[in-house]
């Protein structure tokens, strides 16, 4: 997982078995960077308080977070560029 600043928004990108998933990097609980946590299949686990989100839907799978994270469509362009659509 890596986080990128995209026009002022921190967006994390996870590679799950060759498929790229982009989502808001900022945990909705206390604002930690989700890319600083761990990824298990399509679940991202926040390193600060253990909140878990589905990176495909943004849904909260485990608190303490209550609100989902935004997710973004991704497209791999020629030349190895990853495009993230807001």
């Amino acid at each position, binding site marked *: 997982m890596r986080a990128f600043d995209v026009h002022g928004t921190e967006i994390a990108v996870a590679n799950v078995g060759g498929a790229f998933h982009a989502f808001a990097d900022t945990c909705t609980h206390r604002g930690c960077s989700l890319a600083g946590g*761990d990824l298990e299949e399509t*679940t991202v686990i926040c390193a*600060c308080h253990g909140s878990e989100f589905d990176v495909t839907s943004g849904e909260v799978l485990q608190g303490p977070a209550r609100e989902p994270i935004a997710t973004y469509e991704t497209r791999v362009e020629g030349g190895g560029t990853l495009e993230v659509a807001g």
Partner: protein
Amino acid sequence: MAETFVIVGAGLAGGGAAATLREEGFDGRVVLIGAEPRPPYERPPLSKEYLRGEAPFERALFQPPGFYGENDIETRFGVRVTRVDAAEKEIELDNEENVPYDALLAATGARNRRIPIPGLDLDGIYDLRTVADCDRIRAEISPGHKAVVVGMGFIGSEVAASLRQSGVDVAVVDQNTVPLRRVLGEEVGRVVEGIHRDHGTELIFEDRVAAFEGTGRVEQVTTQGGHRIECDFVVVGLGVEPVTEPLAGTGVQIDNGVLVDEYCRTNVEGIYAAGDMANHYHPVFRRHIRVEHWQNALKQGPAAGRNMLGKNEPYEEIPWFWSDQYEHNIQYAGFHTEWDELVVRGSTEARNFVAFYRKDGLMLAAVAINRGRDLRRSIPLIKNQEEISAAKLSDPDVDLRTLTRGASLR
């Protein structure tokens, strides 16, 4: 006739158990009884973001207020249980109602320990357990006000930090040498001490309060060591004790809380316990442990609910909690009361490390400051009771996930 499951205690464990009974399809009567006059809520924000006025109470609610009615969960909030009759399988409430039960879950939590100190009844002296307690402390917060925090366990440490962050001058008094010493020990406590010192908190250790003094209201705190601290208010955080009185006379075994087996069952048929007040036989640590933290309440309550339905699932979550103090994230996983070796990965000076508490080569627990990812990766090592060399544990280039057999972090 439909069965009735009664849950005594409407904190996170009780609320979670009630929700779980419905999720699992239980179609009998569910009655959730709580002494506080509000639905179940989470307490971690009370010493942090809610205390600092950064988050509304509604964010701490376990479920929206309509949840209980929608799920046909009968609630009695602001009501206490006065007696449990285990022979007749019936409880008596202080609203003069009697409720028969087929199964009962005790999840009455804990109460703050009150140490007899002269002047403790003066106005302006608070402790923190409920949102009502927190609201009283919040009303005292004003930049330039001076607070004395008595006890630097987790609650005291978090409150001291939140008060400083709110512009209050803070002095702390603790009988140990460093904050959190009882749980984390000298070396890690020293790091936490530095954090508090850096934020301008007056730290008085190895000392005890002799008296709270004032006319009607606390005006100063004197210590046995001769300190005299003028103050506007005081917050006392000297630990909690399990609330077991409602089960008196039932024959339920009580020893540091209510003794339960790995299935959250007491020795009395039909009575279960979970949360802060349950002294639970943990299959990993092979001993009874009583845990007073959010995650235990969140997960053990539902586990007890499933076992009330006959699922026979041992509860074996590794205890875990966090403590945010200023900009620092502290996390702990496992359970230890003594250790013979502390293995550190990272730097205590840089306040970025995980430390492993080991005894006879077995890893019992880990604590991390600003290194949450490694802390979470340590949980499977604790769960599997791996014997791992100290060299590997302390080497930051070794991914902790590679040191155990395929255990999930979730």
